[in-house]
């Protein structure tokens, strides 16, 4: 009788089906701490585990830029904006990359989108003026 009760108590509880356990390594969990300064390889590994983590993607984009790979940086930042279109700071970074690549129209789109989120911000307005100036120069 005691055995039956024990089985019931241990086995009967109905738990709702749980999500598959998604085991992130401790390394990826700690990436958001100020002390963390991960390299590109680590960030890419963690990105596979947390594909929608925008802070991870921003860090990855910055790491690519630091390594001189603007193309991959732009890809990471675009991924951020697909997840979170309101991330004005990333639009600013995108705009800098686009301006450096003389893609003025695309840069203007990003800066205008950023100004809708951060109205009146001088840094965005200054860069927008630089984009307009660059576009004028390019047309001449």
């Amino acid at each position, binding site marked *: 009788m005691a055995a*039956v009760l024990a*089985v*019931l108590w241990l086995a009967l509880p109905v738990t*709702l089906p749980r999500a598959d356990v998604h085991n992130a390594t401790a390394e990826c969990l700690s990436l958001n701490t100020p002390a963390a300064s991960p390299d590109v390889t680590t960030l890419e590994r963690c990105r596979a585990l947390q594909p929608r983590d925008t*802070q991870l993607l921003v860090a990855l984009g910055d790491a690519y830029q630091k390594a001189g790979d603007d193309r991959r940086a732009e890809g990471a930042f675009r991924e951020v904006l697909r997840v979170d279109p309101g991330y004005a700071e990333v639009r600013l970074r995108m705009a800098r990359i686009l301006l450096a690549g003389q893609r003025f129209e695309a840069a203007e789109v990003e800066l205008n989108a950023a100004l809708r989120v951060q*109205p009146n911000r001088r840094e965005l307005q200054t860069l927008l003026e630089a984009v307009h100036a660059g576009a004028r120069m390019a047309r001449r």
Partner: protein
Amino acid sequence: MIRSKLFVALRLGVIGFALLTWTYGVATFSPFAFDMFIRPRLMPSLSDFVAWHHVLYWVAYLATVVTLIDDLRARADGPRPARAAWGVAIGCVAVLGGVGVLLMRSPYLPGLENDRRSLVAAYLALLPLLALAVLDHMRAWPVAQPATAAPSQERLLRACLSAAGFVWLVSLIAWLMRKPVPVGEMAALAAWGWSLVLNLTIGVAAYVALLLVSSFEALPRPRPAIAHLAGVAVIAVGVSEWLRRVVLPAISLDAAVSGPLSVYSGVVIAAAWSGLSLRRAVSQPRPRSAADTLLWTQRPLMATAALAAVPFALIPLLTTIERVDWAYVLHRLAIGGVWIVAIGLFLSVYREGARPAWRRRLIIAPPLAALALAWSVPFGLAQLSRTLGDPDLAPAAIADQQAPIDASFRVSMGLLNRASIDLVSFRQRVLDRATAADRGTAVPTAVAATASPPAAHRPPHVFLFVIDSLRRDYLGAYNPQVTFTPAIDGFARESYVFRNAFTRYGGTWLSMPSIWVGGPVTRRWGDGRFAQMNALEQFIRRESYRFLINDFTVAMHLRADTAVTRLDPTVESADTDLCHLLQGLGPELDRAAGQPLFAFMAPMNVHIQNTHVRGGNPVDPRYPGFYAPYAARLERLDGCFGDFVRELKRRQIYDDSVIIITADHGDSLGEHGQWGHQHFMFPEDIRIPLLVHLPGRLRQGLTTDLERASFSTDITPTLYALTGRRDFIAAEDYGAPLFVDADRTLASRRDGSFLLTSSYGPAYALLRNNGKEVYVSDLINGREYGFDLHRGMLGTEVPVDERMRRSGQQAIEAHLERVSALYR
């Protein structure tokens, strides 16, 4: 000799009196329950009980004495057991009488406060029951002859399964009698089918418990005394577990207190029930089994009549309970009581036939069958949901929809869906920290003691509308589907619309003061320290505003020397109406030229009390896809606000005013099967609108971030910053200004996490990723949820994976520890 029925009735009255005293003691000891229910005298009948307790004690005392008459008449020179019982009876009469005299001289209950004395009172309240239980056992044990044979397994099984079906059927009838919100037929069928399976599972569990008790009577040499004690032990464990897992966590009592209290209370209540059952058994005509004695079986005809009467009593009771219940505690108590009564009544109906020897297969087969069914149903539903592509059939969705409408389903799920050991220990740590914060005596504040020099310009007028329970997805400024708020939408086009705003607390009781403080508060915020923490009141005084207010939370805690005009002071809280408040504002605007105005209004037009309880037709073609009573009231409110804005423009005050529309919290309007905002931390409860209009002269040099996570606690620091004051000192966990100079940027809120807390129980939401990832830990129901708020008005529910759980729980503990440290 006192008649049995009279004896039982009087003793039940005495037990009821003791339990009510216990309840008051426990509620007064809990900081949460004391602040929420006791201090505001939310239940007039309980307040009357407390006020008259010393008199009612004598009524209970006299009832006790009447039940002891036969014991007192026992001869002093009679047999030893009778003499001993006589001694105990005399002792009870004397001691309890003495206590009564002391209470008349100095009533104890009205003087209880939120301290240890209340807990002591709760313990003492049950001592008379313990004494009476001892006496009952001394008197009735030798006389109540036990059965000579154990009850048959078939009878026990039939009774338990019948009770399960009966409780399920009553729940179904109760649901059909209401006007249910339409759900898919398939989902409803699946839900009620699952409910039946769960009820049958509980029935089998009850059968196994009865088998355990009766097994001592089925031995070759029956042990009826041990059978009775086993039954008492089962009752004691059941009551203790119910208190420890259901009742006491609902009032945020920490484990160090709730554990011993539950065990003690469970033992005393079980002993009292046992004693009363034995006394009753004495008057029964023939020997009875332990199960029959403890479950009060009776004549079949009476039992059948009682069964027929149960639905007529239960359904109105559940309807009444719904209005006053807290975290479904009373619901669970009512259903638990019906379960026990139903098993006893069905045991009475099914008479004992031939009693075959106990068979092993009737011990093993029913639990195995129940186990198999209970496991297979949710997995089957999950499979069906995937196959048909119908998310409403997923077990979690069915559980969320069914639990609020089916009390027996909720009780069954609560009993069977045990939280993992991790969650239990997490809950204990959280409750300990929350209680430590509540009991802290420090007075944290983010406001500098010395006021900074005022800005050269005149401060703007401030109109701060904190509309109770206003949801952002019911405003056109946030949701293009909304067509019934044109005035607020027009105002939004001239304002800053913060698209990612949250309340820090899920209910008015803590949310309102946190807005005024500009930071975290505890449940003891109103105990006399608030003036020192009230940053907004200090701002109003430092800027010499003419101050107008309508509010029922903070207004009574303002400083006595703060000059304030109360708007609509005689209107009851639930009836406060923005339209009427704005009419009252009119004469004050006439004097706006002389002194800047600060008006704070917290109307309740769209509070759940008005939209759901007072109700209306939930569906209206004018508001497709919206809950019509809420939309209709909001539409009216919007019209009045539009008139107000036009009036401000006409008086040329509009462009000299800071106007803020926000909410103290959102509301659940049937999502997840929930209504209101008791302890819910779903997206619809925690997301709020935040619309800020600034005067032109302030807009020019400022920038902001409309997508950055913002909080209701940012409002007060923003007002300080807008007037050029540096008095509000930035601190972790406090709010921060929403605007900065245009050549700067706001500090990022994307890296960290933010804790949102229910005002009314241990339920938490942890925001990460700029508020786009939400982990909800509902420690009242032992549930957790995950939400992705990147898309949609209410986001998308996502499975809680190990990363989210681990990081969420760690962050919740860390936040609570920081708040606790602030108040130590």
